[in-house]
């Protein structure tokens, strides 16, 4: 009987020894992960042209192209506009150079030729839709931002998605000749927080 108990005890001790040895071997295995930096991959129009037809119905007078910002990255990105007199401003080459003003500064439908050809209130506005997060819904006017260097965030885009902005404008209706005006915009992108 005593002999049988000694054998069982030996087996138990032997099994414990081997199992602890096996556990020690597993504990030295390491896992090494490597993550590459995300690419920022976005696109936007470089040239934005608008037109004003003072002879059309009020709702059809100003035509802005759809400004589609595309995020080709897999990660969400912030969409910002670099502000200041050099970034969202009339191009030096612009043939028509009206003074940038705010909409409330004039009664636009009462302007004669001289004022119509001298003043313009141009802004940029987000279109509700596929934004991951919309930060700014109000239009951003050229005059409003041209004295502050930095950037203004419009919103965030999901990975592999796009969103739209449009130009908004207040203008006179009396023009003695055809006018063409160019503005430049510097977009800025960064990974979303």
């Amino acid at each position: 009987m005593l002999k049988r108990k000694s054998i069982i005890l030996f087996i138990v001790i032997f099994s414990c020894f081997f199992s602890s040895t096996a556990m020690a071997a597993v504990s030295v295995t390491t896992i090494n992960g490597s993550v590459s930096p995300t690419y920022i991959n976005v696109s936007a129009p470089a040239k934005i042209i608008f037109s004003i037809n003072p002879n059309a119905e009020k709702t059809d007078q100003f035509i802005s192209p759809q400004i589609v910002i595309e995020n080709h990255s897999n990660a969400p990105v912030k969409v910002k506009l670099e502000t200041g007199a050099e970034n969202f401003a009339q191009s030096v080459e612009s043939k028509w150079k009206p003074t940038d003003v705010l909409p409330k500064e004039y009664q636009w439908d009462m302007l004669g030729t001289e004022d119509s050809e001298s003043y313009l209130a141009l802004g940029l506005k987000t279109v509700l839709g596929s934004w991951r997060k919309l930060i700014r819904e109000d239009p951003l006017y050229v005059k409003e931002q041209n004295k502050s260097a930095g950037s203004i965030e419009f919103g965030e885009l999901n990975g592999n998605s796009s969103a739209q902005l449009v130009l908004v404008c207040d203008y006179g209706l009396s023009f003695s000749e055809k006018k063409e005006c160019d503005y430049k915009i510097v977009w800025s992108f960064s990974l979303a927080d």
Partner: protein
Amino acid sequence: MNELQDDSLDPRIEQEESDLKPRMEPKKEERYLLGHRSRKPFLFLLSFLVGFMVLATAIFVGDRFMANSSKDTTAQDVAATEVNNPEIRDYADSESVQEGELMTDDNDEQERLNALAEESRVYCIISSAPYFADSNSKGSLSISNPKESNYYSQVVIKTDEGKEMYVSPLLAPDESIESDYLTNKDFEPGSYHCYAYFNYYSSEESSSYLGSMCAEINIMID
């Protein structure tokens, strides 16, 4: 002797002098005639100038009047010709006439502007966190100008303070830079928040500059 020397005491001499005085000074009539004679050229010149000014004014006013009246006459003549001759003229080709009111097609204009914006689409592709083992080693920039692009691009990376760190070569569509050296190696090890400006050109000339986009990145130098 004394009498001969002091003539003023002699009443006869005084009388003789008083008789001579009127002859030496001009009489009133003579003075008037002398003055008139001296002002005459001045008055002549003045009257000439006044006359000239009146004549010039008359010519100017007359010319204006004639010009206005001839203009009115011309406009009146044209109007009279049209009103008195209300015949329908022949017109060889009437293809320009369309049915309905005069109106612009806003949908066409919208599509035209959208197409122009799409044609000018530019791309901004770069690693959000390029890594450099040191400022003299190559770093993983991963800059690309994809084949879908219609424009050349050049990337200029600047720090928050505006210090230039890297300038890429001009990239044509379908060209990329996997890794490259910093063009300014004057940077200590550390993490730098930078702006990568993508400048776009329609040709290989600087004058063909179209615009810029910007990506915020973090550059790490060990």
